[in-house]
Each structure stands twice: as structure tokens, then as C-alpha cells.
């Protein structure tokens, strides 16, 4: 391995270590033959998997769940109101099981919303926050975790152990799913990348990071339950809004608007593909 040329992701990872950001480890050379076919067991992935369980057992995401719970019940915003009357789709105030039934169609706004968008809607309508303010710096960094991130983590945690059951009964929900599938496969930009470029096949990885095939339930759930996720790189909590945004960055696209229809459609596609699988998140990610 070289000292001088890291991927951007690696630079980010090591910056958080902050010890010797540009010194990398010596790694063992592979056996003197071409790489094993992708179907063969991957020793690096196997070693990661062994310690996944350990990491998941005590996941700092729980700290953000606790914070989100506190925020949910606190009287906040210009209206000094809590979110206890927020309707996440199962009726005002019902949080248990709401996450695994999102995104869904909401008659009060006449559109399909994902969890973060719905929480933002409640913060605006019930608490009196301004959407412009909430959208200003929507993503976590080591110094700041936006409130919606903690709230999403709390709401997601209240569906832990439940089966994903993203509704598809309304035409609006089916159309959103179909548009999401189109966006997933939409190849553009200088590198000709779509989501499917990396997430359309089984058993692939980028560097050492496994790339789940998001078109299949068993693999889609691996991605879906990772989020909201505590990211070890930087030690920050992120939601799927961030994940989609950063995927588009790596796709070399321009920036998608936060809480936009595009992201909702992609999340609907992802969630429906994970239907029937048990949600075990919030997760912990590299």
C-alpha cells in the first residue's frame, strides 16, 4: 500500500483517527494467483462479519435513540409543542411499528413521504419550525447532530424486530416505487454511474466494503437495516437521507435536494425491495 494516494473515503476515515492520517498499514499480499471468483468466501468479509455481532451488541446509535426520544416528548419550537400528536401513518402519536410501514402515502399532504420527511413535516406543522432552517444543515458532522437525525433514530428503533411492510396498495405508492426504480437505474454523469452500477449484482465489494444487491430482498435488508446508522468513520449518526445524498456525490452527480421527491422515491424502491424481512436496525456502519 502507498502513502500518497488514498481514496477520498479512506482519507475521511483516517482523518478521524487523527493520529497518523497519512500512514497506512502494511497488508498481507494475496496468494500468488488471480483473485478468487466473487462467489468464493471472502476472508476479509468473513473477518468483518465475526466482529459485526460484537459491534452491533453495543451500538452507540442507542445514545441517539435516547436523544431522539427526549426530543420527541419535549415541548419545543415556536409553538412549544411536543411531537406526540405527529401522525407517522398509524395515527397521531403512534410510533411503534411506524418505521417499517414507511415511506407511505399521506392524505393530509397528498403525497408519499419517507420517515425523515414526515418528521420534518410534523416539526413544521406542530412545533412551528421553518423548513428552510431545518434544511440548512441537515446532515451530521462530528460537532453536530441535527435533531431530525436523532428523531429518525428514535422512530426507527421503535420498529426493531418487526417485519418490513412498506405499503403498495395505493396508486401513488406504486407510482413512487416505479419512479424510484427508474432513478435507481438512471445512468448519467461523467462516470456513467447509476445506483445499479454498484448495487445491482450479488457478492461485489468496493475496496473492502461489501455492496449489497439492492434489487433482492435478502440483500436489500442488509442495506436497509443499516440505517439510520452510527458511522464509525467520524463517529456520527446518519440517516438514509444522508446515505442517498452521499451516494449521489460518489456517483459524480450534482446534489439532490434534502427531503426531495427523488430521495423519497429511491427510499420507497429500497423499502419495498426489503419487504418481508425483519428490521434489526438502527445499525452500525463502517
Amino acid at each position, binding site marked *: 500500500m502507498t502513502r500518497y494516494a488514498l481514496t477520498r473515503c*479512506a482519507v475521511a476515515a483516517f482523518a478521524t483517527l487523527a493520529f497518523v492520517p497519512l500512514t497506512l498499514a502494511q497488508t498481507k499480499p494475496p496468494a500468488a494467483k488471480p483473485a478468487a471468483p466473487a462467489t468464493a468466501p471472502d476472508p476479509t468479509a468473513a473477518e468483518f462479519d465475526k466482529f459485526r455481532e460484537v459491534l452491533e451488541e453495543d451500538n452507540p446509535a442507542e445514545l441517539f435513540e435516547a436523544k431522539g426520544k427526549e426530543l420527541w416528548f419535549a415541548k419545543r419550537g415556536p409553538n412549544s409543542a411536543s411531537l406526540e400528536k405527529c401522525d407517522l401513518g398509524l395515527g397521531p402519536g403512534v410510533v411503534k411499528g411506524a418505521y417499517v410501514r414507511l415511506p407511505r402515502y399521506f392524505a393530509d399532504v397528498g403525497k408519499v413521504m419517507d420517515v425523515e420527511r414526515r418528521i420534518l413535516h410534523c416539526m413544521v406543522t406542530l412545533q412551528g419550525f421553518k423548513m428552510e432552517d431545518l434544511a440548512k444543515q441537515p446532515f451530521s458532522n462530528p460537532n453536530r447532530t441535527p435533531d431530525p437525525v436523532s428523531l429518525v433514530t428514535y422512530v426507527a428503533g421503535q420498529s426493531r424486530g418487526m417485519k418490513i411492510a412498506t405499503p403498495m396498495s395505493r396508486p401513488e405508492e406504486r407510482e413512487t416505487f416505479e419512479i424510484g426504480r427508474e432513478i435507481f437505474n438512471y445512468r448519467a454523469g461523467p462516470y456513467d454511474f447509476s445506483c445499479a452500477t454498484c448495487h445491482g449484482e450479488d457478492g461485489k465489494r468496493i475496496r473492502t*466494503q461489501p455492496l449489497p444487491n439492492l434489487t433482492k430482498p435478502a440483500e436489500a435488508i442488509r442495506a436497509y437495516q443499516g440505517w439510520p446508522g452510527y458511522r464509525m468513520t467520524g463517529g456520527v449518526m446518519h440517516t438514509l437521507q444522508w446515505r442517498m445524498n452521499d451516494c449521489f456525490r460518489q456517483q459524480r452527480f450534482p446534489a439532490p435536494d434534502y427531503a426531495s421527491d427523488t430521495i423519497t422515491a429511491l427510499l420507497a424502491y429500497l423499502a419495498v425491495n426489503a419487504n418481508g424481512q425483519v428490521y434489526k436496525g438502527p445499525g452500525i456502519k463502517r
Partner: protein
Amino acid sequence: MDRSRRVVLKGAGAGGALAAALAAGLLKPGSALAAWNKGAFEAKNTADAMKALGVTNAAESKDIQIRAPEIAENGAVVPIDITSTIPGTTSISVFIDKNPFPYTGTFDVSQGALPFVHLRVKIGESSPVRVVVAAGGKYFTTAKEVKVTIGGCGG
């Protein structure tokens, strides 16, 4: 708060430990409170850190188990389990040789805890994780190599 339980490497019997601690500057005469060992924590290599802690003649031991990944998924969070089966274990100390400040901490298990600890650490580059156990007036040690790699782009 009870600070009289200070974490020191309780290697020797009461008198010996005190003498060793005094010699190593762990305890200031006239004070019941030992400070967080700045000298050891700021040492730039494991040998100097051990010297500052008063660790001498640590014998290699198979009775210390370190469970840590051979290849860490992320060097920012490397989970480590340490278990000592050496009778009379009083403390467990951790050193990450290649980190800029190798001495990572000491865990005092002399007051009712079992000789076990789980912690998560930052490892800047592939490095041995060295553990020193104090038991019955002696020091014991073992190490395990942890590799750190470049990952993907965010999982």
C-alpha cells in the same frame, strides 16, 4: 467520589506496590490521590510507557486471551475483549505499539470485578495490541496483531 481506589498497576503486595508506585512517581508522597499517569500516557513508545508505569520483567503468558479482529473493519473503532486466567489478576493494561501514544489504559479489577474487560480503540495503522496483566506481584504479557485497511465509501 471515591478516588482512593486509584488505578495503579498493582503488581506487588501492598507494601511493594506502594514502593513501586512511589518509585515510578505514580503516587506523590503525602497524597492519597494518585494522578492519571501523564508520563505514561504521553510516552511515545510502549517501552517508555511501561517504564513510567513501573512495569518490569513482564513474562510472556498464554493465560491472557485477547479477542480482536485480525483485520479491523474500521481503525476508528476496533473492539477488543481481554480475559486473564492468571490467578490473582489485579489489573489489565493495554498498549497499541504503533499509535503515537501507545499506552491506552489500565483497568483495575482488584476490587470485585472479574479479570475481563471489553473496550473499543482507535488504531492508526496495523499494530500489535499488547496487554500487560499484573497478578501476584508479577507482570505478564501477550500481544495480538491487528491490521487496518482502506475501506469502501461509507457502507
